[in-house]
């Protein structure tokens, strides 16, 4: 199978979805990279579950404040206008629909938009963190993930076999191969990575994809 986009390019594509003035929560891993690719004229404020609005880039060693991390545990810097609040207020922001976009990693996404991203069943225990709150509260949920597992199994499936994070919660999936919207009628393939055909995307996707009449190549 083709490799398609790198992790950085997936992040770059997602960054284009963010609009000036948005409040955004970025999950651990790939989603964190999104903040590196914002256009200079787009001012986005980053929210972190542990009670922080307006954090900036990762801190250089000499800038580290041991009381200042984001929810991924990274030492970060502040941007002007940042502020702090407690955990209940932080999740009031999330649950109350004040976060414009939540970008999360995924293990599986179903054709109805169910998400599984917090536990590999074989381990028997997993850390859900704030993911269940984010998917039920954010206005738009974008999942960033590899299109298949390391062994080539589809991650976009008819029904998730892993424990769910949320039911019918995903709006958009961006993978190394494709940009897909979850619609009422099913999964709509809107964009493909350069050099990848819709048929190739379908061949590694379990449910039947709807092909957008405006299908295009992912612009970077």
């Amino acid at each position, binding site marked *: 199978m083709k490799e398609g986009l790198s992790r950085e390019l997936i992040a770059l594509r997602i960054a284009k979805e963010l609009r000036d003035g948005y409040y955004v929560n970025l999950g651990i891993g790939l989603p964190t990279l999104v903040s590196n690719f914002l256009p200079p004229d787009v001012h986005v404020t980053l929210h972190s579950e542990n009670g922080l609005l307006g954090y900036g880039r990762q801190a250089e060693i000499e800038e580290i404040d041991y009381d200042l991390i984001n929810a991924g545990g990274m030492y970060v810097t502040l941007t002007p206008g940042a502020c702090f609040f*407690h955990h209940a207020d932080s999740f009031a922001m999330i649950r109350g629909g004040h976060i414009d976009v939540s970008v999360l990693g995924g293990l599986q996404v179903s054709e109805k938009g169910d998400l599984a991203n917090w536990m590999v069943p074989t381990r028997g225990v997993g850390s859900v963190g704030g993911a269940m709150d984010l998917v039920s509260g954010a206005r738009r949920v974008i999942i960033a993930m590899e299109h298949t597992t390391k062994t080539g199994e589809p991650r976009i499936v008819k029904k998730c076999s892993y*424990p769910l994070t949320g*039911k019918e919660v995903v709006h958009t999936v961006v993978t190394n191969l494709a940009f897909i919207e979850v619609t009422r009628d099913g999964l709509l393939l809107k964009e493909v990575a350069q050099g990848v055909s819709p048929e190739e995307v379908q061949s590694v996707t379990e449910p039947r994809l709807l092909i957008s009449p405006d299908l295009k190549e992912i612009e970077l």
Partner: protein
Amino acid sequence: MNKVFSSVDEAVADVFDSAVIMFGGFAEVGVPTHLIEALARKGARNITTIANECGVSFQRKAVHLGLLVGNHQVKKMYASYPVAASAQQQSAFEQQYRAGQIEFELVPQGTLAERIRAGGAGIPAFLTPTGVGTVVEKGKQKMTIDGREYLLEHALKADFAFIRAYRADHEGNLVYRRSARNYNPIMATAAKVTIAEVEEIVLTGELDPEAVVTPGIFVHRVVEVKKR
């Protein structure tokens, strides 16, 4: 009415077996490490913990709540983030959980925070969309409002809250530093006895009334510890 204690050991001296205890902190930040160490020294058993995590290990050495779990002082844990993402190095919690030696309830992070706030605010239960359609809904009452399903989640309260703050005055008013605020202010409200370890105790009147985060009404004991 003196809230200032001279040592963490004195501050936790009356923690009893089977106590329910909340522990502030998120990852390494805002954790009441000195109080936890004091409780490890004291040795109360069959503790129930309510915290974001279940304790971690670094280079096989348990720290924070891991210290209490490693000592077999813990009977049950509530957490949103019980284990590290990597399954490589198992925490004391994960080992005991696999061995059936410790009870565990997974609570989504926002639900955990809200259940604690509810405990402090006299709200016995509330509805939330979080967890509908997942393992979290097991055993919980569901209600539908305006066509959307919600879970009825119950308040959490504790016998003790162990929290960490930046500064306290003699009335127990607290301020925090940066993201070390996290769970500490809400846990302060939800326990019969709230014990705060702080970096500095200042005279009453020295904290800006507009900037106090935890009003002293919620804090029963404060103890100064050295900055980590």
